[in-house]
């Protein structure tokens, strides 16, 4: 079986990329192929990166409060492109009240500040399926 391929993306205008970079490195150290998109990616750019990179997982880092706009658009685009089997997870600052809405549209994992890196690695290993 090939390694899991993960696209780590930083959507929106925010430039605080410490979390995105740390998790990118942790996933790589855990044996995954990690593609970091860099900053200020629109949902369209993220989906196109996922398609191009044949990603099994998309990890979004969002701290600014823009998740209610970005996540629904991303999930819709994934459906349109036939990528609805890609595991989508979000790390960042997400108010409790928004979590059920995000889960409902198909975001599988939401990781809040203080989550151990190992927990995220384990979650991805348990929930993502490498394409053949």
């Amino acid at each position, binding site marked *: 079986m090939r390694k899991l391929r993960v696209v780590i993306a930083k959507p*929106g*205008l*925010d*430039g*605080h*990329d*410490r979390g995105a*970079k*740390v998790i*990118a*490195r*942790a996933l*790589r150290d855990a044996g995954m192929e*990690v593609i*970091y998109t*860099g*900053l*200020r990616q*629109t949902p369209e750019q993220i989906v196109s990166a996922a398609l191009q990179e044949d990603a099994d997982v998309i990890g979004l880092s969002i701290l*600014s*409060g*823009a*998740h*209610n*706009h*970005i996540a629904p658009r991303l999930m819709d685009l994934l459906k349109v492109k036939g990528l609805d089997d890609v595991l989508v997870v979000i790390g960042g*600052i997400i*108010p*409790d*009240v928004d979590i059920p809405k995000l889960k409902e549209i198909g975001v599988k994992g939401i990781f*809040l*500040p*203080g989550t*151990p*890196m*190992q927990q995220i690695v384990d979650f991805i290993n348990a929930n993502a399926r490498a394409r053949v």
Partner: protein
Amino acid sequence: MNCGMKTATGTEKERWERDTLEPTLKKSPERAAAFTTISGRPIDRLYAPDDLGDIDVARDIGLPGEFPYTRGIHASGYRGKLWTMRQFAGFGTPEDTNGRYKALLAAGGTGLSVAFDLPTLMGRDPDHELSLGEVGKCGVNVTSLADMETLFDGIRLGDITTSMTINSPAAVIFAMYLVVAERQGAAWNRLSGTIQNDILKEFIAQKEYIFPPRPSMRIITDIFGFCSTEVPRWNTISVSGYHIREAGATALQELAFTLRDGLEYVQWGVEAGLDVDDFVPRMSFFFNAHSDFFEEIAKYRAARKIWAETMRTRFGAKNERSWKLRFHSQTAGVSLTAQQPYNNVVRTALQALSAVLGGTNSLHTNSLDEALALPTEDAAKLALRTQQIIAHESGVANVVDPLGGSYFVERLTKDMEDGALAYFRAIDNMGGMVEAIERGYPQKEIAESSYKFQQSVERKEKVIVGVNDFVQQDEPPIEILYIDESAADAQLAKLEQLKRTRDGDAVKRTLDALRDGARGTTNLMPPIIDAVRAYATVGEVCDALRDVWGEYEEVPVI
């Protein structure tokens, strides 16, 4: 200094280690094989006179108010004037934030500090594609002069000092402030405050850049030049380590990169033809007040000394105001935890205390709920009260540099200085900070430190109370400030109305003049002021500059 009294068999410390320490360690070993600061710096168990061997007390430590200012820039410390309690605030619409400012001033705050939202910081109007979901979320949205007038409505700009955290579009926002002040009848040469205006740390750490490094540096030197004659009491830049630290740098990296950024600005100012003593006195600094108490105090003390000596020897500054490093500090946002948020009050109090013991000139204390959201009004008030308790109840403000002479603090101060100077040499060898940034050097150093720290947390070598130890299940949620989309709707409606009612020809004419200016070499402040006076928006002014200079794109370093 006569240190380490020698005995026949070595120093006093060596004798103590042999006679007293060793038997103790045999009976009860220490908690760990090695002790380090939060930055990973090894720390000895005891500091004694022996440890001050290479420190000359008169030359290196000196006295407060005198060169090299290790012990502070004011001879009387906080006995004359306390530090400025400046609480950073901004959210939603200018109307929302204006209300918060009035509340902070009524609660005894002594200066304003504006937090802008991401569209404003990135020079985008609310109707831009990338502004979707971001308007008013992380700060206040200011699109045009009309918003700036609302933001300061009922607040006399001639009577207060205002700090504005704005970088790439700093010249635009500052121009708006000047026009609002003028309309209130406040003369520019009486205005006092600060714009952050520090683009280098954006490339290094926070990543809120728009234009490439070189034109970005040019606007900054234009602001230095403009203010030296037109707004002489304004602090033209706040060279910031805060964001460098938040991105994962160690205390030493924060110190070294920040001061080296400062030197880069001075160098560019000199190369633009300015006299050092005309603009350096208006430069200020901004440091992070992190959790490792003594390391932070040493960092501030070393910063003052390095700056004073470098200004005098490297740039030949003669005005003592060019030698004095003045700084704002803010407690470490990154240290706040979403778990057991009330613990954050204690963290913040300790961090604030370190900034005060390090001689900060102004201070922002974070609110307990900031790992979750922007602060509620009650949380922001408690953060201000924390400073007031330190100032008025703890007694620490009654004596100047109370830790001066501590073997530990003086040793650490000297080590921080030596470490920073080694970084300076490395960056000088690359050709300067702009060149170092272009090759990703500080970015890589920080990414490395940040990953190492995270690993040490995972391994529990560093304990974070409530996160990787002393964890509590089923915590009750706390009340947070939830910012909905009403601010975005309001700002979009105002923008639409503005575009209908302003003089479109004047906007076009002033933006064309600005493009011409950007292609040439004349000072850009006057054409920017003309454009904002005509109600050109932040997005339009930045677009005019994007037309000429393009946008910066970084090669990400993991």
